[in-house]
């Protein structure tokens, strides 16, 4: 019985084979691996502290940022800080936030989706109206409101506000899809058999339904991850991200925007980093979806 329950997960070798055959997924995978390597190994390899304001040597005599050179690979920003060191540090910040936010969204989405799908009836209707309610608000509006409220709480000064904001907004799609799948599975014969054998609802959800929606959840998570990366940049650009002096790509874009004519590297570096990261995770997510698709029978 056990082998059947975790059937989806045991098919990893086949999944990997499919992914390797998909060029888009390959590129996405390479970009993501590179990004993770940059965020983990990079800070140790960087020559400069990303938060050190080197106003004496990092700015021209007139006070202008310095263009890329041998010492500062991507130039310096308006406070004489090394842009390359900040891009690397920003990769860490962005990945950390996106990972935690996606995990939170997945946990919420799975829990609510499974409950609604398995229980059905009144519980399902109530939970799905909650989803509608959250979806009805424009993303930015809710995000800004939540982030501002959490900033006012004692959590300011950490990444908690932005993680909670993204997690609390991001679970809705996951919940909807999971609920749909869970509904189908809950009415399937093997679940009926398990119920006839006296299995409790918790056991059925945990051992029969969850493994069957895991594949969908992984795909949604990967795509949601890319969205969270982008959303993190947007919120940081609006000043609701990690507080200064922490480096974050969105904030770097914001600080560099007025220099786009005189020192374009300040905004270009984080801009390109955001594009690469979002494209990487999207390609990987789509590759995963395609690789899991035949089994999904959409």
């Amino acid at each position: 019985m056990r082998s059947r329950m975790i059937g989806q997960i045991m098919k990893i070798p086949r999944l990997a084979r499919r992914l390797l055959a998909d060029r888009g997924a390959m590129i996405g995978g390479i970009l993501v691996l590179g990004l993770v390597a940059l965020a983990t190994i990079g800070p140790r390899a960087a020559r400069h502290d990303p938060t050190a304001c080197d106003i004496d040597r990092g700015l021209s005599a007139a006070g202008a940022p310095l263009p890329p050179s041998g010492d500062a690979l991507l130039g310096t920003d308006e406070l004489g800080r090394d842009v390359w060191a900040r891009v690397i540090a920003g990769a860490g910040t962005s990945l950390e936030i996106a990972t935690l936010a996606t995990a939170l969204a997945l946990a919420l989405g799975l829990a609510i989706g499974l409950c609604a799908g398995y229980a059905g009836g009144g519980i399902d209707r109530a939970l799905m109206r909650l989803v509608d309610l959250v979806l009805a608000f424009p993303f930015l509006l809710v995000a800004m409101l939540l982030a501002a409220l959490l900033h006012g709480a004692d959590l300011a000064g950490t990444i908690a506000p932005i993680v909670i904001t993204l997690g609390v907004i991001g679970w809705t799609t996951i919940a909807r899809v999971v609920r749909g799948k869970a509904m189908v599975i809950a009415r399937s014969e093997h679940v009926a058999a398990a119920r006839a054998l006296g299995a409790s609802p918790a056991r059925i959800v945990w051992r029969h339904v969850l493994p069957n929606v895991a594949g969908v959840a992984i795909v949604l998570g990967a795509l949601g991850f890319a969205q969270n990366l982008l959303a993190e940049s947007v919120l940081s650009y609006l000043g609701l991200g990690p507080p200064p002096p922490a480096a974050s790509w969105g904030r770097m874009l914001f600080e560099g925007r007025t220099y786009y004519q005189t020192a374009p590297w300040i905004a270009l570096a984080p801009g390109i980093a955001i594009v690469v990261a979002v494209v990487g995770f999207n390609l990987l997510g789509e590759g995963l979806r395609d690789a899991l698709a035949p089994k999904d029978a959409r």
Partner: protein
Amino acid sequence: MRLALALCAACGVPDVAPPLPAAGHAAPVEGGTLRFSTKDQVRTLDPSVEYDEVSAYPVHAIFDTLVDYAPGSTRIAPRLAERWTISPDGTTYTFELRPGLVYSDGSALVAGDVAYSLSRARTLPSSPFGPFLANVAEITAPSARELVIRLARPDASFLDVMAMSFTAPQRADHVAAAGDQIRREPLGAGPFVLARWDEGRVLVLAKNPRYWDAARVHLDALELHENVPRDIQFLMFQRGELDTAERLSAPDYLRVIAQPAWRPYVLTRATMNVYGVRMNVRQKPFDDRRVRQALNYALDKAHVIKLLQGAAVPSHGILPPGVFGRDDALPPYPHDPARARALLAEAGYPHGFDVELVTTSDDEADRLGQSLQYDLAQVGVRVRITEMAFASYVTAIGSPTGPAFALGTWQGDYPDPTSFLDAQFHSRMITEQNSNNDCFYANPELDALLDAARGEGDPDKRAAMYHRAERILYDDAPWIWSYHQLMTEVVQPYVRGYAPHPIWTRDYSSAWLDRSAPRSGGDSPVDRGGAP
């Protein structure tokens, strides 16, 4: 050609010469509209209420006062008053008005109108100017051209008060008839009158044909565009849609200053401001003066000046250069992190402390905040930066239980030390809400010194008293004294007859446009192209 220019802009190479040169007339050309902008907006045109820099642009153009500052100077000069006398005991001021003065609608202006304006400032609840007249015992207008003001005690800064716009004559029946609309229906005797105000967008002033000193006004109109952010302002200026631009963002300033052909048109002026960090001395850990001194030693002012592109001077106290009573020999706190750490350890903070810095949301404030954050981190003080909109920031710091550590800025109303020292540090100015003394600093020794200096008639003795006051505040350090900013403004080469005034910002009343065919106030950019 156009493409070449566009490419140049893209690769950061500055344009070579100003595209709109001057025609080169020797005598002022009459006519034309001068266009400028502000990133904020005009709140009111009622001089009894107006107390912000932006509203002052139009208010000062619409209203003349009895006395005013001479062009380019902080010396008091006659304006609506032809002459004045001060009694030997320094308490009675007698002003004699010019003959034949009229308002812009043609009605006669009499001395009693000034008395009315002063009493209005005292009684109107929304007027912030009452305290300026606390020392006035009696105001009388013996004749239509004579005004007598008797003070309770001599006050060396009284003529400066009489140069503030709230003292401008207003007609009582006009104010009564306008009612709530007085903020939009100004009636003054200044060089310009309000022609149109599309609130939040554009305010147009037209030349006052009945102005008593019409010979000094050459422009037909002034056009003030509101709510134009700094970077947009500069783009409009480059396109020739504005004739002047000020408070350039750092990259725009660097761009202009890098072009030798533009340099003569970049005007720099010292204004009466001071910037730093103000500490609430009632709250821990800032109740200990060793902590406040330590933070002064921790700040590297050379870095601050460089981050402002050199357009600032380091400060040792609140009085800006050029203001009477400033002790120019007092050097600013040196950058000495070791001393800062020692003082912090002595005060019981060997490992520093955590603190929230409240600042305003602005690129410049953000940059300087992060630089300060870095400097203080070097001595163990961990700063968290919180940005607020300007209005909420002002309300927050005016409360005794508000943020302890916040951006400090002060702009003097007139070039006298009372406008700085008394306003910011006299214990009388402490209130439970909107406190002007926002450090909540109370020192009886300083209070007594300031009270004595205000009434002192001998300039040398008075200056010595202010030197001592500066020393007290230097040692007590209720602020991290940082810098006095120079205001930079760039004008089109054809803007002539204008020099930034040390007190009135953006006073274009005597400017003229040196162009072959003066432009009328059309809204279409095509009209604005001009000769080239």
